[in-house]
């Protein structure tokens, strides 16, 4: 029974996100652009509870949306779980095995002097900035979760809007710059919703003020 607490929390947050999306967000239009509370909730669950929980949340949202709100068959059913899994790959906590592997890779790079050679060859600031981006994705430590949640929400919303735009393009809707602007505006609005929901959700998940899930679990185990 004790092991069912976390799945139940995930289930509750997923349902709340779904109800927020279908019942509340329709009243909060800003210039005919609305946000996706489902994707914001999934982003919070992704960063907080990891890939498996994120996948389950994505599946539940997809099934609910397909059952209750579907206008295009199979679109929601597939897009939500897939987008969730993609974002979970990028923004969820690193596992112990991944962290160790990256630590080893970074150490080997330094040992081989690749970084030094890289700097010697390309001194321009542009290359250094690009290299920082590469290092960001090859980091051996987790980013702050309060930074990862908006990033995850923005990425997932952007992907979801991209899927819708592709569907529109296939269906001969006639895409123009207005659609792109609306997609960007919707993604930014989703980020804002994620920032608003982040604190109460993480408080409900007992993760408010903690950097990652591992520290919380370790503390619990030590206790």
């Amino acid at each position, binding site marked *: 029974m004790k*092991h*069912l607490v*976390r*799945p139940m929390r995930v289930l509750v947050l997923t*349902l709340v996100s779904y*109800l927020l999306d*279908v*019942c*509340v967000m329709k*009243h909060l239009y800003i210039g005919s652009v609305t946000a996706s509370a489902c994707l914001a909730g999934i982003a919070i669950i992704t960063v907080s509870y990891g890939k*498996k*929980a994120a*996948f*389950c949340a994505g*599946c*539940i949202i*997809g*099934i*609910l949306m*397909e*059952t*209750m709100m579907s206008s295009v*068959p*199979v679109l929601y*059913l*597939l897009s939500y*779980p897939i987008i969730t899994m993609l974002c979970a790959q990028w923004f969820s906590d690193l596992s112990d095995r991944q962290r160790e592997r990256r630590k080893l890779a970074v150490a080997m790079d330094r040992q081989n002097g690749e970084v030094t050679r890289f700097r010697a060859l390309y001194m321009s600031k542009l290359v250094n900035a690009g290299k920082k981006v590469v290092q960001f994705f090859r980091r051996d430590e987790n980013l702050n979760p309060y930074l990862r949640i908006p990033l995850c929400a923005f990425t997932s919303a952007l992907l979801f809007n991209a899927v819708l735009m592709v569907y529109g393009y296939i269906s001969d809707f006639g895409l123009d710059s207005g659609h792109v602007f609306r997609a960007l505006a919707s993604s930014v609005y989703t980020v804002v919703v994620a920032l608003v929901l982040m604190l109460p959700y993480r408080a409900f998940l007992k993760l408010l003020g903690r950097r990652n899930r591992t520290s919380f679990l370790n503390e619990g*185990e030590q206790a």
Partner: protein
Amino acid sequence: MAKKERKQRKKKESGSFARNLIMVGGGSLLVILIAIMLLGNFFDQPILEKPGEVISSIMTPVQNAVSKAVGWVTGYFRTMKYRSNLEYEYEQALLKLEEYQDIGMMAEEYAARLNAYQDLTNETFGHEAMHPVAATVIGHDTGNYFSTLELNKGKNDGVLDYMAVVSKGGLVGYTYDVRDASCKVATVIDSDTTIPALMESTRDQGSVKGTYGLTGEALCRMYYLPENHLPRTGDVVVTSGVGMPFPKGIPIGTVRESTRGMEDNKQFVVIQPIVDFQHLEYVIIYRYIPSYAETAQLSEETSGVSATLVPLATARPLPEFATNVGTSFEEGGVTTPIPVDEQTPEPELTPTPSPAPDATEGPAYVFVTRSPEPNLEYIRTTPTPEGPTPSPTPLPTPTPVPEFDMDDQHFEEEEE
């Protein structure tokens, strides 16, 4: 110690296994559900639509309840916003109302002023021959016994003493104590004012005197009417032009009550003035000098200045007056002097050496030496005040008396 560590590791492994089992089991179940729903889109099998129906039956009431709650909350906020909008619009409407009230008041003020100007214009253009000049009332005597006004026109504008002052077709009074830029007006309701007047219908002459100092009412009394005539209520009283340099025929008022014959000690009739003395703002001064008043006026105003008539080579053109000259006995009932002949040369004023005029004393003084006009009669340009219009008292027609001439008499007997 090793046993304890082994026990903790075993516990940790079992907890992790259970969590993984739940998550993997749940995930698998969800994947199966997705697969069934996917297949339901491609195969028309009722069993494949069952999961969707179950989920819909569970979620619909929940979603409905949440929608109602959210709808209530949003409705409340919408009402609040609507109310705040209403309050804002109400305040704006109040501001607009105040603004329009101000504009309305200004419009009324302008309309009243326009009416006054219209009256002045009518009076001025209707009696151009009397040389009218518009003046503004700049002061009132606030006493209880006298009723005098102060106007902003004086000698600089050609105003002299005893000139008629009218407003809205009625006599206000006459000027006196004329200064360079101002003059005073003795109104017809002042107790010290006596103006010769006549009944318009019967042409009975008398004199009108104010009662303000006697009774405190803005009324007049007409004395010295013939005893055999009893004026009727509503009879119009006008100036007679006798005894004062006034145009003839300016309405003074109407007979308010005529009880002269009923009471022995009441030798007057009460006249209601036409002019509203409480609301006088603008008046017109008639700078009219009748011909019979020429000598007296000039001798009064030009003390120390002798006027000599110098014949000119050409006659001075006189303005043509489209007015009825009151020379007829039948019209005016009063014998008026013969109008000045057009060939009369303009009197040229030549100052005598003694006494010399004081140069320091004289301000911007324009001595008007306008030649006297032929005696004009006032023509009403504004309607008389509403009231019963009396029928003129029928005058006794003279009984024809047979005239006998002794030469025309024939006696049959003598002829025979």
